């Protein structure tokens, strides 16, 4: 026959026909082409352009209406068949669905967190325009310096890239007029704060420019949660008045349910209502820094442009006010997208967990692919018969993929349920890493992810198993039973899958092991205090009631005396903070640091001054917490405002500044030499910013110089929390309007401070445990299969004189070989991935030998255990029966 060259229209027709299912084309394509050719010839004979056009239109419409119907028909018949097969193999179906559901569930749960926290933009209009501005003193190691009122005014007036710039600081005030006096978390904000974020009030209004003028009548806006929980969603709340800081405040509005950054507050007030922010000291002193600053980019401006703009302003400030910004502190300012800023802390942990979850899913896929392959071996004849009856290869592949998709889809649904169930736990955990945790929920993005995970999963294990069984469809029909060659090739694939599972399990176990080891190390660290039986209570005054410093001092002394006399109290002290206090853990040392100078030590030009954290403590503070005196003396009652200023330092400071000298008697100043404090003693180091945080230099000053009651620290003779009520009563005996909040034992505080590494370790542990179980079951399964396939060969060996113990050894050895191979790859993978965990470890190298060898042994033991049962069965083979059975 003459070779035909296809005309353009024929080529086009063939291309169109490709949208029809393969089997349909196999059956009808030739005929369809024939019909189309005849139709064309007819049109040509009649010679109408519009006729030809009409023919094409009808042809295209015809094909595109037929195709979906044909595909759908195949799909429904495949699904029906697949469901029948699944019911028939209920055991396999259940195991496969459960395994995949665990993998998909873990991924969905972690992804819902990653999606809500890292990927989704902040829930404000044009959220990508929101930026966070920080000042820094780089040479002092201070990355996040607050702003003073003067500085805010400068940035607001001088910037060219922002459409708005607002300030924020958090306060805690006492609110009267609503039951008991109540501490409310208060956000003090610029008048246009909510406007900048694009938040519309639910009730009433937010703040107006006139609210922010000094002396304006004080107003409040309530957060949605506070309004709902404390006022029962009172619709008449707007216009109600409350007393706060000795002034009547009127509620003007209620916020909608929006996430609040950077902290959650009960109420918001404009800057004019904050007694501190409006004090002369804050208004006029450029160095009184307390506020955080947010901005909104002008349309079309990038964050990088804003950063350059802000940086130029800070350079200008340095020139204009050299005293406030000395060269040697490395002053600078930066602007960064708010979203990035809010999620910085959570990123490494979440990415690690996402990787871990992905590993679990890969292991689950490999395992189900293995299960499917084993089942395929049993179904080979069925598939071969269908193939012989005319089902095309792609038709069979399609059938197998449909089956695997149905499995994965069911697993996806179950996984979604698992993820939903674990969300509360995860939200609680992530809440320690980022303020965005409250936004975590399962939305359409997550559902798409789950669907994609299920589809990807089914595709992965479906094609894997289909491809390896396809190769020998015809041979299995010819030879009647599984041929030796096919069996061996399939076993190689299965073994490779097992090796992969072990390798991934090894990596996960290493991750979990390393986290666990650092947790243990952390717990063994000497915190420098004796936290048992110590209770901390935060107290606060009504500022307006204590009009003079003397009145305040007397009240604080009365408070201390009253608490000390309470039965069960061993030692009572007062401080402005305490080790492991949640705020301190979050803020880090820089939140309580300042720079100072040492008498007689001039700085080189450009050299940074020393930096220290600072605490104001009453004399018994060290005794209450069990901090040992190393040299000199502690504070005495006589170290007060009347006597000379004395300070106590810790050993970290001694090591840094006087490594070979005695610091006692040296003098330091933090106000440019106006006042000098003499060092009278050295005390032990305390890891107060978290057990994983090395001690930093610290200066203690007598509490009497500080005019705030702060925290009561009480060492008790009994279980400390049982004394909370009595101690609260004691405080109210002194001043019934004094508020007591956040009562926490130091052991609780210490435990809480480790919550993040603990939960990370637990989650990784769960993932690793899952992986271990799946992989072990996999090894057991494949060894059992191999033994059953080789019964005849083993029978012959035994008949020829092989001892059962050598058969046992042979099978065990094969299982162990897989494990050793997997562990080898796992070691390489774990070493390559050290970067992922490094930042989360504490005093454990990412290639910790103990962890690696421990995990290796665990996996080997698990593999040995899993291969032992099949090995014993192999050793017990009766040669007569084995040979007869063939």
């Amino acid at each position: 026959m003459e070779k035909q060259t296809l005309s353009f229209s024929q080529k086009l027709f063939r291309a169109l026909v490709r949208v029809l299912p393969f089997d349909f084309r196999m059956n009808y394509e030739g005929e369809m082409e024939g019909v189309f050719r005849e139709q064309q010839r007819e049109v040509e004979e009649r010679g109408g352009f519009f006729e030809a056009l009409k023919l094409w239109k009808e042809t295209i419409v015809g094909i595109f209406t037929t195709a979906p119907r044909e595909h759908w028909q195949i799909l429904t018949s495949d699904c029906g068949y697949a469901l029948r097969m699944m019911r028939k193999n209920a055991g396999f179906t259940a195991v496969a669905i459960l395994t995949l559901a665990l993998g998909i569930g873990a991924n969905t749960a972690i992804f819902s967190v990653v999606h809500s926290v890292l990927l989704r933009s902040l829930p404000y209009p044009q959220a990508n325009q929101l930026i966070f501005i920080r000042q820094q003193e780089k040479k002092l190691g201070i990355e996040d310096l607050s702003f003073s009122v003067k500085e805010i005014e400068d940035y607001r007036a001088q910037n060219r890239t922002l459409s708005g710039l607002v300030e924020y600081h958090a306060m805690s005030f006492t609110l009267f007029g609503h039951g008991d006096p109540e501490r409310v978390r208060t956000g003090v904000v610029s008048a246009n704060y909510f406007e900048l974020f694009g938040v519309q009030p639910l009730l009433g209004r937010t703040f107006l420019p006139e609210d922010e003028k000094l002396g304006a009548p004080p107003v409040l806006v309530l957060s949605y949660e506070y309004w709902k929980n404390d006022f029962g969603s009172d619709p008449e709340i707007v216009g109600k008045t409350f007393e706060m800081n000795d002034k009547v405040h009127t509620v003007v509005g209620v916020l909608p349910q929006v996430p609040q950054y950077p902290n959650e507050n009960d109420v918001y007030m404009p800057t004019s209502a904050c007694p501190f922010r409006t004090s002369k000291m804050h208004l006029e002193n450029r160095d009184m820094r307390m506020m955080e600053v947010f901005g909104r980019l002008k349309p079309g401006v990038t964050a990088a442009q804003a950063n350059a703009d802000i940086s130029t302003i800070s350079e200008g400030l340095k020139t204009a006010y050299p005293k406030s910004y000395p060269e040697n502190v490395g002053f600078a300012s930066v602007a960064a997208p708010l979203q990035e800023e809010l999620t910085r802390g959570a990123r490494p942990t979440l990415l690690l967990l996402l990787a871990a979850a992905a590993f679990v899913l890969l292991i689950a896929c490999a395992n189900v692919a293995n299960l499917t392959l084993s089942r395929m071996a049993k179904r080979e004849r069925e598939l071969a018969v269908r193939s012989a009856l005319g089902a095309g290869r792609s038709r069979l592949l399609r059938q197998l993929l449909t089956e695997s998709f149905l499995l994965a889809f069911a697993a996806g649904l179950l996984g979604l349920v698992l993820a939903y169930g674990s969300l509360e736990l995860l939200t609680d955990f992530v809440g320690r890493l980022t303020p965005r945790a409250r936004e975590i929920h399962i939305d359409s993005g997550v559902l798409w992810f789950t669907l994609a995970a299920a589809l990807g999963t089914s595709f992965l294990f479906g094609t894997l198993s289909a491809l390896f069984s396809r190769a020998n469809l015809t041979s299995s029909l010819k030879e009647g039973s599984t041929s030796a060659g096919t069996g061996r090739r399939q076993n190689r694939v299965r073994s490779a899958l097992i090796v992969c599972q072990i390798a991934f399990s090894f990596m996960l176990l290493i991750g979990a092991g390393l986290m666990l080891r650092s947790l243990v190390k952390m717990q063994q660290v000497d915190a420098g205090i004796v936290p048992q039986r110590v209770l901390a209570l935060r107290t606060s005054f009504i500022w307006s009631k204590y009009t003079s410093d003397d009145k305040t001092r007397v009240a604080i002394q009365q408070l201390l005396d009253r608490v000390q006399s309470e039965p069960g109290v061993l030692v009572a002290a007062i401080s402005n903070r305490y080790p492991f206090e949640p705020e301190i853990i979050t803020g880090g040392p820089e939140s309580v640091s300042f720079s100072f100078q040492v008498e007689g030590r001039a700085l080189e030009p450009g050299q940074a001054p020393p930096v220290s954290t600072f605490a104001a403590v009453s004399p018994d503070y060290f005794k209450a917490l069990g901090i040992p005196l190393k040299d000199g003396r502690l504070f005495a009652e006589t170290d007060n405002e009347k006597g000379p200023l004395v300070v106590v330092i810790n050993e970290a400071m001694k090591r840094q500044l006087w490594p070979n000298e005695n610091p006692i008697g040296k003098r330091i100043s933090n106000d440019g030499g106006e006042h000098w404090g003499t060092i009278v003693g050295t005390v032990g180091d305390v890891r107060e910013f978290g057990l994983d945080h090395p001690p930093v230099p610290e200066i203690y000053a007598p509490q009497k110089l500080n005019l705030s009651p702060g925290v009561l620290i009480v060492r008790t003779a009994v279980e400390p929390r049982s004394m909370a009520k009595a101690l609260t009563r004691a405080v109210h005996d002194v001043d019934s309007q004094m508020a007591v909040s956040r009562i926490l034992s130091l052991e609780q505080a210490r435990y809480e401070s480790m919550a993040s590494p603990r939960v990370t370790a637990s989650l990784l542990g769960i993932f690793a445990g899952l992986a271990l179980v799946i992989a072990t079951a996999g090894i057991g399964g494949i060894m059992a299969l191999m033994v059953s396939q080789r019964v005849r060969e083993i029978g012959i060996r035994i008949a020829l004189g092989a001892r059962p113990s050598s058969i046992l050894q042979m099978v065990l050895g094969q299982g162990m070989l897989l494990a050793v191979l997997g562990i080898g790859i796992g070691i390489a993978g774990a070493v390559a991935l050290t970067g992922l965990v490094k930042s989360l470890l504490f005093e454990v190298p990412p290639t910790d030998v103990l962890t690696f060898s421990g995990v290796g042994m665990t996996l080997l033991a698990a593999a040995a255990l899993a291969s032992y049962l099949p090995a014993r069965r192999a050793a017990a083979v009766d040669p007569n029966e084995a040979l007869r059975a063939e």
Partner: protein
Amino acid sequence: MDPRGERVTKKRETESFLPLTPAMFHILLALADGEKHGYAILKEVARRTEDKVRLSAGTLYGNLARLESAGLIAESSRRPELVLDDERRRYYLLTEFGREVAVAEAERMEEALGQARAKKLFRKPKLA
């Protein structure tokens, strides 16, 4: 076996196909007077309906596939006359069951037509 029961099942089976799509009905009609290949069916339907029902290659074979798998038509064993065409054409014939379905469809339409007549639907509209 109860012959009445069998008849009822058969009737029910036939009725499950009703109403037929116009394309299907016309394909069955085209095969009523003998077997034909695809293009002949297409031509005959177009001729008989004066081009009101036009089948394209896609719709024709989509319908043939469905009619065939439902057992309403079958492939004939008759082979093409090689002289006339070098294309491997397949011929289709109407099965007994297909004929029953086509008859049932025609009866259904007849009944509907009768009802329309009874309601005097075909009365000429009055001109205003």
